[in-house]
């Protein structure tokens, strides 16, 4: 068997011994060092901008001119003028319609419908459809925006061609509807996958019991399925609403027009802050958007917590 320890090669004797230190203190110090790079990046480029925006909103900051060198605190003027500006109100209204139409009704509705249909359907057709839906979600936004510009084109667009060579000016006469339909197409995949996952958690025995009792598909859906996955649907709804509120893609399709018909909040902020360079005003509106986001996110996290 093995000889005594002393006969084994002893690379350890004479190697440096670590300094004596309290175990716990060393651990925490190491942890702080490990956290620093990430926290630094997050602090500077995520936390600080959010807080700074609140301050900027009460100044008259501009990029050029006197205000650039000597921004003055002008109190809540930016905020009050924003809230009183009819264009801001229009923007808020347009965004609300955009969220309701494309996220609440569109993405969630279609996503759920697809998830429900996919439940017991297998085969190449189902897989192909699923891939299509997901691909629509994955293709980068600047490409997708053009695809829809082409699709909806008045004279040469595929949609009009499919409708028997109609010449409907979708983007000019029905801009808001167009971007709602677009965003539904764009984001359904997420809701579909999430609802699919939620439906999977439903024990089949629940539905079978109902079916044996004579419930139709529709009744099963209404009485058993929806109440069970209500929590999932709610959190999904909050998430996609948050994203849609902040979605910049409409800008790439319609740039807010025609005539501010698709002037969602992100577009409104962009135009005021980075085209008109009214940075103080832009910051104020951004702060308002941040507050909206915060409310939605808090409700979402509260719901998540309650569910787990």
């Amino acid at each position, binding site marked *: *068997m*093995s000889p005594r320890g002393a006969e084994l090669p002893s*690379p*350890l*004797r004479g190697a*440096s011994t670590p300094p004596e*230190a309290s175990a716990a203190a060393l651990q925490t110090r190491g942890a702080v060092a490990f956290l620093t790079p990430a926290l630094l990046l997050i602090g500077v480029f995520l936390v600080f901008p959010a807080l700074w925006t609140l301050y900027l909103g009460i100044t008259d900051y501009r990029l050029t001119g006197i205000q650039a060198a000597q921004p003055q605190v002008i109190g809540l003027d930016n905020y009050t003028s924003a809230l009183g500006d009819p264009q801001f109100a229009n923007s808020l209204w347009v965004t609300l319609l955009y969220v309701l139409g494309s996220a609440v009704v569109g993405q969630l509705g279609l996503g759920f419908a697809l998830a429900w249909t996919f439940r017991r359907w297998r085969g190449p057709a189902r897989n192909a459809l699923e891939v299509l839906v997901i691909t629509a979600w994955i293709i980068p936004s600047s490409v997708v925006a053009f695809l829809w510009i082409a699709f909806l084109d008045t004279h040469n667009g595929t949609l009009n061609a499919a409708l028997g060579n109609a010449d409907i000016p979708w983007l000019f006469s029905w801009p808001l509807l167009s971007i709602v339909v677009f965003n539904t197409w764009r984001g359904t995949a997420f809701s579909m996958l999430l609802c699919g996952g939620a439906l999977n958690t439903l024990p089949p025995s629940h539905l079978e019991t109902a079916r044996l009792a004579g419930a139709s598909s529709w009744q099963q859906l209404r009485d058993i399925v929806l109440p069970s996955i209500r929590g999932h649907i709610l959190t999904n709804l909050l998430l996609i609403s948050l994203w849609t509120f902040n979605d910049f893609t409409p800008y790439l399709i319609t740039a807010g027009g025609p005539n501010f018909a698709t002037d969602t909040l992100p577009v409104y902020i962009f135009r005021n802050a980075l085209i008109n360079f009214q940075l103080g005003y832009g910051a104020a509106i951004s702060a308002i958007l941040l507050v909206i986001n915060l409310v939605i996110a808090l409700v979402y996290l509260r719901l998540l917590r309650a569910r787990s």
Partner: protein
Amino acid sequence: MAELEIRGLTKVFPGGVRALDGLDLNIQDGEFFALLGPSGCGKTTLLRSIAGLETPNSGQIHIGGRDVTRLSPAARDVAMVFQDYALYPHMTVADNIAYPLKVRRVGRKERRETAESVGRSLQIQGAMLDRRPGQLSGGQQQRVALARAIAYQPRVFLFDEPLSNLDARLRLEARTFLKQLQRELGVTTVYVTHDQAEALALADRMAVMDQGRIRQLDTPSNCFLRPANTFVAAFIGSTPMNLLPAKVQDGGLEVAGQKVMIPEAIRAQVRVGDPVILGVRPEYVSVSPTELPDSLAGTVRVLENLGVDSLVTVEVGDLRVQATVPEERVPAVGDRVWLAPDQRRLLAYRQADGEQVGAPTVALSDTPALVPGAG
């Protein structure tokens, strides 16, 4: 020199759970020392405190005369083998064994040589050195974990139930292997287990623990033959010791309405009328089909075949007494028999605190703490 001294070690977990309660312990250099007890008794907490993975609230730990209580695990010169072996899945066997050297920045060639020589002594060689842990059997993994601890050349080995993941047959083989290995290496070893047979087989000395305290610190032989209290008596031994409530009478004990003799040594420690618990192992109770003086009469209720012997459960009054009998003398269920305990093997415990009669009173804490999962 690598003796271990532990003084007044106390560890209270958040929530008030008292895992270690003022422990005092001395382990000699080169000794194989077992910590035995049910789950939650504090044995693993004690082991981890020695390693430095838990910080005690009060008390001291000295290794080889050096106070290590405040030191990080790295500075204590101990090696620990975990229950799940903790072999790193992405490293080969050789790299696993040599990892302690890599930490010390030893060169690659030297690491490989050490891995090979240590491995060879544990029959880990050839192609096995370049496999991944996931490709090894349980027994092989265990040896690799051992090799890694040996390669570190620590002053103390700490084992946390290293055999419990092996199947029964393998466990017995590994037990023998471990005992011999430790003998040859001569390194102080602290070994945690909940298996009393394992502790008895392996240890030079052992500590039986319960709820953060040591109930008996002695050689395995003494723990088996002369358990200090009813807890140790009940815990040790493959067949449970008979613990019979009795009352001291003039010249003997009254057990279930019958009289039994007790040796002078015990008689000197008790007074008539004292309530005691009589302890005797089934192995030391003989069963007779005919009446004997100073024996307990009863009826056979259950027979269990143990291989060489059988375990007979006899109903004596409203008590049940067990005895082992060799195969040629097994009675039948329902037989009337007389049980005669070996006087030299009788033990008596106080009913009040479970300690041996004549032992000093042990102060137990007012609220015996439950220690879930901290054993």
